[in-house]
């Protein structure tokens, strides 16, 4: 099985200049908790990722005004990515190694063309592989 078979294609993306409110609305509209942050809407080169946890942390834990913040203020700057034709098992190994729940998928030009989440793997992979990813990602809290 390849990444392209179960990834979410053409995910909603934002730019570092997008307001947190705009990003939160995108999460509502797309029923997701993670939005890739791209350089700009033309190139779609990923420069980071922002999750509902990132937003909540900045606004609630740090007491900052969400209206004053942008995606660039809350995102995780580094992006781990794979190509669409990457084998799912290889992708799982990478997610385990990096201790991440979601991974960006980029095309040959480096543009974001998809996103793969642990939930996608759990829904489509064998029970054994799902359990393996869960176990490995859980080790960080052991």
């Amino acid at each position, binding site marked *: 099985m390849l990444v392209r078979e179960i990834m979410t294609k053409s995910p909603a993306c934002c730019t570092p200049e997008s307001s947190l409110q705009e990003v939160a609305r995108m999460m509502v509209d797309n029923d997701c908790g993670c939005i890739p942050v791209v350089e700009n809407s033309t190139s779609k080169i990923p420069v980071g990722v922002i999750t509902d946890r990132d937003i909540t942390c900045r606004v609630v834990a740090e*007491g900052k005004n969400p209206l004053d913040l942008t995606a660039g203020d809350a995102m995780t700057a580094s992006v781990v990515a794979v190509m669409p034709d990457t084998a799912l098992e290889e992708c799982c190994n990478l997610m385990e190694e990096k201790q991440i729940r979601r991974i960006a998928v980029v095309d040959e030009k480096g543009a974001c063309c998809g996103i793969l989440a642990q939930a996608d793997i759990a829904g489509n992979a064998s029970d054994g592989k799902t359990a393996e990813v869960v176990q490995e990602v859980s080790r960080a809290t052991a």
Partner: protein
Amino acid sequence: MFVRDLINENPAVCTEDLPLEQVYKLMQEKSGDHVVVIESNAHRIPIGIVTEHEICMQVVGRGRSPRGMTAANVMNTDFVKADLGADLSDFSQRRSGHRTIIVTDENGALQGVLPDRVSDRAERGEIPERLFKSALPPSPVAAFDRIF
């Protein structure tokens, strides 16, 4: 496999009047991404659930300030309940769209939560330091690893 086999019997709980900042702190202390809202400490009847996603939607998505808000302002009252003895396979369809299922006894009292099928521990497996403590650069850095 039954609900009781995977249940987390000690979820984070609060009453609806708890300030949102304290709800979030409770969420972090329990290393989870949800807090079950109960009627009272005496009557642990679940009335809602607060998640990071809900906080993000209800506060930031609506352009509101978290100051002065409580659990009642952001909790999701549309949650799925399960009995301890229920068969897990019965919920694989019901939990669609609901990440966490609240488990109750025959009196409706909270017994625990059934985490998302990917496992509550996996959800917490994301290294907290990457998200909370790392200093973000003033402008985004286009740095990413590509694996072929």
